[in-house]
Every structure is written in C-alpha cells, then in structure tokens.
C-alpha cells in the first residue's frame, strides 16, 4: 500500500505535479473546523483554477460585449474568444471541425437537444430506443419522454453483479427496430467505464444512432470522438474545471446538418420573414439567443489547462489515487464498496455504504471532519434500487486530490464506526 502512496508522491514519476496544481486552486486552502477542506465531490462539480476564473474576468473587464453582431473591438474580441473556445473543445475531443461543437448549458441540455431535435424528427411508433439501467436521470428521462410521445419502446441494457454493463444480451436488446442507443461512458455512481466498442459496433450493425453521456469521462480521461465511433457526445464544463452554465454537445456534422433546430430565435437564423425562417450555419443553428459568452471563454481556458497537463496524466493520477483508496478502504469493517474493483476499468469515483448508517448521516459526520463528499441517489434512482441500497455515499477525485486526503477519509470512516455504534 505504501508503494502506491509513494508512487503518487514521487514528483519524478510521470505523474501530475499535484503541489503545483493546488497552487492554482486557492479555494483548496479554505479551512473548516480547523482543517483544510478535502474536496471529494468532483463527480458533482469540480473546482476551477485561477486561469479559468481570470479568463472570464478578463472578458468582463476588458472586452465585455455581445458577440457576432458588434462592429467594435470588444465585440470582435468576444466573438474571437467564444468561437475560439469551440475550436479548443473540438481539438480536445478530436472532433472533425469546430462546427460540430455546440455549446449548451450542461450535459442535461445536450442530451435533451438530441431527444428533441433528432429524436422527434426520427423516432416513430414501434421503433425502439435503448438506454441502460445505470444511467444518470439526464440520460434516462429524456428518452422516457421521447418514447412516450412517439409510442416507441424504451429498452434497457442491464448490469452485471460487479457493476459493469451486462452486454450478454446486446444482440437482442439492440435490434433492427432500434433507432437510438444512449449510454454513459463512465458511471457516476460506480465509476465503471462502459464497453463502448461492443455497444457501438452492435448499434452500427443495425443502423442506430449512438449517444454517449461523457459527463464523467470528458473531465477524467482522454476522449477521441472519432475513435469512440459515436454520433453524439455530451458533457459539462463545470465538472472539468470550467465554469457553471456551459456544456457541450458534439455531433456528427452530417447528422447535425439534417436535424431541425432546437432552441430558436436570435443568432440561429439565416433569414426570417413573417411567413418562414431559415437557419444559420453550424453550430450557430443550435445556439439560439445570446450564448454563455464568458462561460464559453472560461471553458476554453479549462480545456487549455487540462490539455497542458495532459489527459493521459490526469487519468494516470486518478488510477493511482483510486487504487490507493480502494486498498485503504478494504481494511474498514462493515464497509460495502460498489462497482468494479480493478482501477484500470474504472474512474476515480467510489460509492460505498457503512453498515446500515444512512449515507446522509455519514456524509454529515464526514463534513464535520472537513471532508466534502456526496450522499444520496446521485440522480441514478434505478441503479440505486438495483444495488439494494437507499442511497450511497460517494467520494470522487480529481487532479488536485492527494493520498493525504484519502488517508483523512479512511480515518474518518474508522471514526464513524464508533460514532454510529458499529464497533
């Protein structure tokens, strides 16, 4: 165990320089109850480095203006910054062109965009839509609504006992009637990384469109939408060092060109008469109204920050930290850990329960130790039911988390056993 810990601490290794990273996040020096806050709720939202905050400040202080239409320098610079952020994101996920990158509010809106604009134009009565039992509500409810509206059938890929998607019946579940397959790249409860290749291969055999929820993968591992082979990929800025209020939908150009628009109004039109309207070029066709300009610029800075670190290293850091945490937590009596056990097949998300202590009560106790975790159903009620739990407590890591913070979590869990009379 000490090996893993030392490896992470060894700055000569190929790992991230966590000490240097932490200097970019002054909030991590905030103290609660006499201790620095161990922020282990990154699955919900990450912190943002000064570089991201400063990029937005610079916009507000130096060239604050609406984009596209202004005939003066501020507006020009704002346009450059906002359009440039699309280009940065395109490079980050290896999109063919920035025109395939649509800025939304968050993953949820990105997935709704597909359900409304693609779904309502392409799904018909009797068709099938496939999702999975492990999905976040945002990748589940929109398909329920679409299926109900179109009288289509919604089918679910089940889960194995070890918390992986169970693709043994894939060829039945995804079949000739399937029009769309939507699944998460990484579970936000179990950390499990999905078998993308197998699902995409099968979906493509039957000509279904593939939607990947990348909310938990884009921030934490290298993502190449071309290699994934999907048609849509959705993620959120606020989980990847970016500001709130900005998300991304990547879509294949040919599909986006064919799709009707979603949010309509200013900036997404080419020509409007009282009788009818025509649409602007991609991606503007899907970005109606004044967009989240400062937030787009902030997301661009977040992508710069992550790219500079290198997403391989980000992933490596989290594998090491997760391995260490799983090792340490294995020694805690009464602790149930959900999901796969091999850190190579999962992200830095660990959900657990301590005896029959309600996760809320456990999280409250951890909060007294200045450890910020999440407790609840994590917007995955069907999965939580399957785990036969009321809820879980979840610790989730990012680039600035350290083995010391894991140690504090482990110590606090030992202490919790006393507080809740489990010993």
């Amino acid at each position, binding site marked *: 165990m000490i090996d893993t810990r030392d490896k992470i601490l060894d700055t000569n290794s190929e790992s991230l320089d966590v000490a240097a990273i932490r200097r970019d996040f002054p909030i991590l020096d905030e103290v609660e109850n006499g201790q620095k806050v161990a922020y282990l709720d990154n699955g919900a939202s990450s912190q943002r480095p000064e570089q991201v905050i400063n990029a937005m400040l610079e916009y507000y202080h130096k060239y604050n203006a609406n984009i596209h239409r202004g005939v003066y320098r501020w507006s020009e610079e704002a346009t450059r910054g906002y359009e440039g952020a699309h280009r940065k994101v395109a490079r980050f996920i290896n999109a063919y062109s920035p025109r395939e990158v649509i800025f939304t509010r968050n993953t949820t809106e990105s997935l709704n965009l597909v359900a409304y604009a693609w779904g309502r134009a392409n799904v018909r009565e009797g068709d099938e839509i496939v999702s999975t039992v492990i999905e976040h509500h945002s990748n589940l409810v929109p398909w329920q609504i679409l299926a109900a509206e179109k009288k289509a059938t919604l089918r679910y890929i089940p889960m194995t006992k070890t918390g992986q998607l169970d693709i043994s019946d894939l060829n039945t579940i995804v079949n000739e009637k399937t029009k769309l397959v939507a699944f998460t790249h990484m579970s936000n409860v179990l950390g499990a990384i999905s078998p993308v290749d197998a699902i995409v291969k099968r979906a493509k055999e039957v000509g279904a469109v593939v939607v990947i929820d990348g909310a938990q993968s884009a921030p934490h591992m290298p993502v190449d939408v071309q290699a994934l082979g999907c048609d849509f990929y959705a993620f959120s800025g606020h989980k990847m060092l970016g500001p709130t209020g900005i998300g991304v939908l990547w879509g294949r150009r040919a599909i986006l060109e064919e799709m009707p628009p979603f949010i309509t109004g200013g900036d997404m039109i080419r020509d409007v008469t009282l009788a009818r309207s025509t649409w602007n070029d991609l991606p503007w066709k899907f970005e109606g109204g004044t967009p989240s300009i400062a937030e787009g610029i902030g997301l661009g800075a977040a992508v710069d920050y992550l790219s500079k670190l290198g997403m391989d290293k980000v992933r490596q850091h989290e594998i090491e930290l997760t391995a260490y945490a799983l090792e340490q937590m294995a020694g805690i009596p009464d602790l149930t850990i959900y999901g796969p056990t091999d850190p190579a097949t999962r992200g830095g998300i660990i959900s657990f329960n301590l005896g029959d202590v*309600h996760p*809320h*009560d456990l999280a409250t106790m951890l*909060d*007294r130790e200045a450890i910020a975790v999440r*407790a*609840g159903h994590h917007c995955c009620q069907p999965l939580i039911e399957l785990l036969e739990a*009321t*809820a879980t407590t979840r610790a989730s890591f990012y680039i600035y988390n350290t083995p010391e913070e894991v140690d504090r979590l482990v110590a606090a869990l030992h202490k919790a056993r006393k507080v*809740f009379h489990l010993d």
Partner: protein
Amino acid sequence: MPGETVRDDLEMEYVLELAAAFDKQMRGHVVQNPDITFEDSNPLCGDKFKVSLKLNEDGEIEDVGFTGRGCAISRASAMVLIDEIQGHSYKDVDEVTRDMLIDELGIEINSAVRLKCAGLALRTVKTGLQKSGYKVTNAEEEDWAETD
C-alpha cells in the same frame, strides 16, 4: 437535553437515540382507519415517508403512524414531531416549524439537503393535512433556502 447544542464528535448521539426511539415506536404500528394518508419524498435523496393520521371530531390528532425510509435526522425529527402533535389539535401543527425541530435535535445543520431531511416528516404531515382540506401553513415554503 432538548434544545442543548452538542458540538463534539458525538453530537449525533441524541439524534441517533431519537431515531432509534422512532424505529421502535413505529415498528408494527398501524393506524386504524386513518383519516389522512399521504406520502412525500425528498427529491434530493429518494427518502420517503408515508404518514397516517387519525383525527377525532374535535380535530385532535389521536394517532400518527409513519412508514418509509429516512436517515437518522429525518427519523429523529419525525419522533420529535410526533411528540409535539399527538393528542393536540391539527391547528397546533401550524405552530411547529422545521427550525423548532432542528433546535430540539440539538445539532447544527450545515446543508440544504439536511434541512430537507429535518423537514421531511413535517412537510409530509402538513401537506397531507392541506390536501385533505385542513388549513395549515404552507409547508413547502420551508423548503426554500433562506437568504439575507
């Protein structure tokens, strides 16, 4: 002990005791011919309570039963609530607030989620009464985080 704020590591102690008392009192307890049954849930965690209330002709609450699932804080505050309202007129429910219950638990509550936990039983009772035509204060407004 009620009303006293315990701030050490064992500050959950009293809450856990109350929650255990709630579990004991509710186990197997069935309200006969309830006048009101109502289920509410905390959308933040999926915890749910179903309340059953028996009122006599004077509008006094004769019996209270809860089923469902909840954390220690929600169960403890339900226990306090039962003590406050059983045998009293439904009108007295109006005088119970979430803050009173939290005070009674003797803990400091630090988060919007936990506030909703502490208020779940009260919300369920109040909304149940309202939906059956009894006039009590709007429970849901307590679910709104306060600001300056």
